[in-house]
């Protein structure tokens, strides 16, 4: 549903095209571009969100023990990631660490969530952009070539040519599309066994879980996990075949969605042998997690310390509908280690919404703020992205080389994933190698590898959990008192990337609460230093490979670039009428204010 508008021609024939809302993502995202069709290039890109949530506003004054139940509702697909992250933050604030078995149950639930969400997004949403029907409409010559190209891994997945794979991706009729829906059912059942309900868990709360730890619950999970393995073992080589084909058949396709390597990962799967939820030890227990935290700049791992990551977070404005909070209260001047905490850190943020008209040229145009990470070496505020989550997690874990549990091993430049033999397939090993680029294809490729990673990790977690159950150590909850004054922070990975929750408690109530999910990082608008957000950055300057001209342009390459980030901006609806003719332009802020 692209909107086309001719822009006054200067030296180049530039056409303004916009997609608002972008479909097949969660929530409301608008992408506004200027395209030079003569040179097949996107000249400029702006990403906007027209939805205001206000969690940081209405969480104030609430009982902190409700935080995970409320913040879970931030998202209708990764709500459990929010609940878990909130529990991490609350555990720190309450000074407790839950019994080890509870932690393994959390890890198993989250592993199922990664498998579920990545699969449904990849096969049912992303691959619509790569399916036979779509490629026929946008790049017919590419489909012809795909018909003639043998799939290198045909012996594993059974599809003879690349076009056969593309047909399997066709929505509603393709085999992979349908099988992925089936997979998402099984993985959600696995999730529910551990966290009670999907997607807003009912058995997750600070101090532990209400899941009754019996041998039965873990074997039920394991039997489903084994069923998933056959799918995963076929999906990984199938993904490789398709993505490698795009590189080969469309030279230069690596430029689609490519941006500087600026990746952030906030860690996932806590290790109960190391993690005590004390801020003072956060750097150490963060590194012990089964997905290593890290910030990667130009291929270099800058840090794996969650303390460094935490202190470097800055929330900037520049193109967002908010007033600055520089003169508002400072809640946390120093962290528990004595380090100064910046005024622009989430602990000290005060959200001051200021609804206004959208102004794409030199004004404010989004409800998303601009989170950045302050690089002390250079003084830059880096617009980190998560690459849809999987690529950043694998990249940080690979470079750090800390994870080694047998099923998964980080080597320093790759991640080895070992999947055991199942009824339909033999034992298999996959290796995710650090790619040359941070681009659309590699973000998508990493996603299916992370499904395999999560499945392999789940075996480790099950073994650990069953060992505790067999020893009779079935306690899954730790009691606590709510302190009058406390601070806490939780670092986790939502399915599509970094997730942090920052909490300040005063008089036993929430004084300040700021969740920062992945999409504010990825979908942020240009900040006041002029640094564009990752979507904008990735799309601007990218080449266009679509064979359609401006008249029936679908923007498939732009959509592939944006969707590779797994955008998630819950939740709003826009309506567009007509063939490029704007009947009425109306600005409807969500709060009670009149906009002129």
């Amino acid at each position, binding site marked *: 549903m692209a909107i086309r508008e001719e822009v006054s021609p200067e030296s180049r024939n530039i056409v303004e095209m916009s997609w608002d809302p972008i479909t097949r993502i969660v929530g409301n995202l608008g992408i506004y571009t200027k395209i030079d069709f003569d040179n097949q290039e996107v000249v400029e890109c702006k990403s906007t969100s027209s939805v205001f949530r206000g969690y940081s*506003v*209405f969480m*104030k*004054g*609430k*009982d902190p*023990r*409700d935080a995970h139940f409320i913040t879970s509702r931030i998202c209708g697909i990764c709500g459990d990631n929010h609940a878990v992250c909130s529990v991490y933050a609350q555990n720190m604030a309450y000074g407790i*660490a*839950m*019994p*080890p078995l509870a*932690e393994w149950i959390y890890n198993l639930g989250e592993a199922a969530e990664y498998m579920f969400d990545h699969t449904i997004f990849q096969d049912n949403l992303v691959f619509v952009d790569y399916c036979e029907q779509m490629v026929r409409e946008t790049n017919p010559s590419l489909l012809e070539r795909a018909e003639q190209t043998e799939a290198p891994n045909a012996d594993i997945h059974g599809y003879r040519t690349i076009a056969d794979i593309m047909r399997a991706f066709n929505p509603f009729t393709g085999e992979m599309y349908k099988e992925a829906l089936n997979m998402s059912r099984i993985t959600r059942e696995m999730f529910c066994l551990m966290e009670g309900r999907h997607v807003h868990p009912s058995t997750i709360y*600070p*101090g532990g879980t209400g899941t*009754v730890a*019996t*041998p039965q619950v873990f074997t039920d999970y394991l039997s489903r996990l084994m069923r998933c393995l056959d799918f995963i073992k076929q999906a990984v080589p199938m993904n490789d075949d398709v993505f490698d084909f795009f590189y080969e058949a469309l030279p230069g396709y690596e430029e689609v969605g490519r941006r500087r390597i600026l990746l952030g990962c906030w860690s996932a799967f806590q290790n*109960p*042998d*190391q*993690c*005590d939820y004390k801020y003072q030890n956060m750097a150490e*227990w963060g590194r012990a997690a089964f997905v290593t935290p890290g910030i990667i700049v130009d291929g270099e791992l800058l840090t794996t310390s969650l303390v460094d990551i935490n202190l470097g977070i800055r929330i900037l404005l520049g193109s967002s509908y*908010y*007033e600055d909070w520089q003169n508002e209260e400072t809640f946390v001047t120093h962290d528990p280690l004595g380090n100064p905490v910046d005024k622009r850190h989430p602990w000290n943020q005060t959200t*001051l*919404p*200021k*609804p206004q008209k959208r102004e794409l040229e030199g004004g404010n145009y989004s409800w998303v703020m601009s989170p950045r990470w302050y690089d002390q070496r250079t003084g830059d505020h880096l617009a980190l992205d998560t690459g849809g989550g999987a690529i950043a997690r694998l990249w940080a874990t690979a470079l750090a080389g800390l994870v080694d549990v047998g099923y998964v091993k980080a080597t320093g430049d790759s991640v080895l994933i070992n999947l055991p033999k199942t009824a339909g397939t033999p034992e298999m090993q996959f290796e995710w190698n650090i790619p040359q680029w941070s681009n659309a294809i590699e973000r998508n490729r990493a996603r299916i590898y992370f499904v395999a990673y999560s499945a392999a990790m789940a075996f480790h977690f099950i073994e650990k959990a069953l060992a505790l*159950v*067999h*020893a*009779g*150590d*079935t*306690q899954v*909850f*730790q*009691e*606590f*008192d*709510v302190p009058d004054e406390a601070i806490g922070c939780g670092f986790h990975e939502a399915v599509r990337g970094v997730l942090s929750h920052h909490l300040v408690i005063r008089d036993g*109530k929430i004084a300040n609460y700021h969740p920062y999910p992945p999409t504010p990082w990825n979908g942020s608008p240009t900040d006041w230093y002029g640094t564009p957000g990752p979507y904008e950055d990735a799309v601007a300057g990218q080449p266009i490979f679509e064979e359609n001209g401006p008249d029936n342009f679908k923007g498939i390459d732009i959509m592939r670039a944006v969707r590779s980030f797994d955008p998630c901006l819950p939740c709003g609806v826009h309506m567009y009428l007509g063939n490029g003719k704007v009947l009425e332009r109306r600005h409807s802020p969500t*709060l*009670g*204010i009149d906009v002129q």
Partner: protein
Amino acid sequence: MAEIRVGKPDTKPDAPAHTKGINSGNEPGGIEAEPGLEYTGETGAGRPQTRSYARKSTGINPEKRNPIDPNSPNLPPA
């Protein structure tokens, strides 16, 4: 707050946490009062280590439900 027109609140934000007669599940003492679970020390990172007995699952002749060998674990059915 920003200059935004909002309605008058008709409840306090923390109302559900203070409903009379509702106990807080997190308050210390509850687990201790629960039968069939013994603290045996601390495990990695200072986390509690426990051992459960048949009494955790049943109040009817629980001593007859434990394993014959005291070193064997009790696997609770639920």
